């Protein structure tokens, strides 16, 4: 969300950029209106609700503030954080002999961070700690820029001998995907 593709080299660019970070072509894809909408969106993310009433020129000053020419912009760090939210409510009432099993995904999250670090490490070793290396790492993690929300409500009322198992499969697919990318990277640089 909020990125634009360069018309010249198809490079994906952050919405904070007014020029392509690859070939420096000015952004032509976004209409002025949608640029404003994007800015509003990102500003809202920063300042929550109070920005809802922000004047257009205030938004413009924010835009000028962001007009810098770094090759790798701030989103590099941001993308390391995957948004995950798991809500679980288990309600057992007037029941007996109830068996509820839910997976604990804390381990999965740390595994995921381990994989992300490994990918960054492999890139940094093989390409060096250069702008190029950082750009590659950023782009690879960009593909994993996802939000996951799992909400579970289990309500057991007036029951007997109930057995419930739940597993957070989304997360394991995510981890497998990261592993696939790591393996592919490693194969490409002839290590495996």
């Amino acid at each position: 969300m909020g990125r634009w593709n360069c018309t010249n080299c198809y490079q994906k660019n952050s919405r904070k950029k007014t020029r392509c970070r690859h070939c420096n072509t000015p952004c032509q894809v976004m209409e002025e209106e949608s640029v404003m909408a994007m800015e509003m969106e990102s500003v809202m993310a920063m300042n929550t609700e109070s920005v809802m009433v922000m004047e257009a020129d205030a938004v413009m000053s924010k835009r000028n503030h962001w007009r810098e020419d770094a090759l790798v912009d701030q989103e590099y760090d941001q993308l390391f954080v995957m948004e995950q939210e798991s809500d679980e409510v288990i309600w057992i009432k007037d029941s007996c002999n109830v068996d509820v099993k839910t997976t604990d995904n804390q381990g999965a999250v740390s595994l995921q961070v381990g994989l992300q670090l490994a990918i960054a490490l492999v890139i940094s070793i093989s390409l060096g700690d250069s702008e190029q290396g950082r750009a590659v790492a950023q782009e690879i993690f960009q593909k994993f820029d996802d939000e996951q929300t799992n909400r579970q409500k289990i309500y057991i009322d007036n029951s007997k001998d109930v057995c419930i198992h739940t597993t957070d499969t989304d997360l394991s697919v995510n981890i497998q995907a990261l592993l696939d990318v790591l393996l592919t990277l490693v194969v490409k640089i002839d290590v495996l």
Partner: protein
Amino acid sequence: MSERQEAIPNKVVDLLVSEVFRKNNVNIDNAKSKLTDEQKRAIRELVDELKSQVETFVKESPSSKKE
């Protein structure tokens, strides 16, 4: 890769990585030659370790709580 069910088809991941390299003008041969044997060994160990961890995780659901 093993017989485990793939999260994303191999070709997709392969294309993704190649495409990112191409777009950023990465010379893979250059990168290959830069790596020392020691580094390659370290990476190999790291990848094997993570791979086995992921496989263990995916195969059996981890700790569960009982009520």
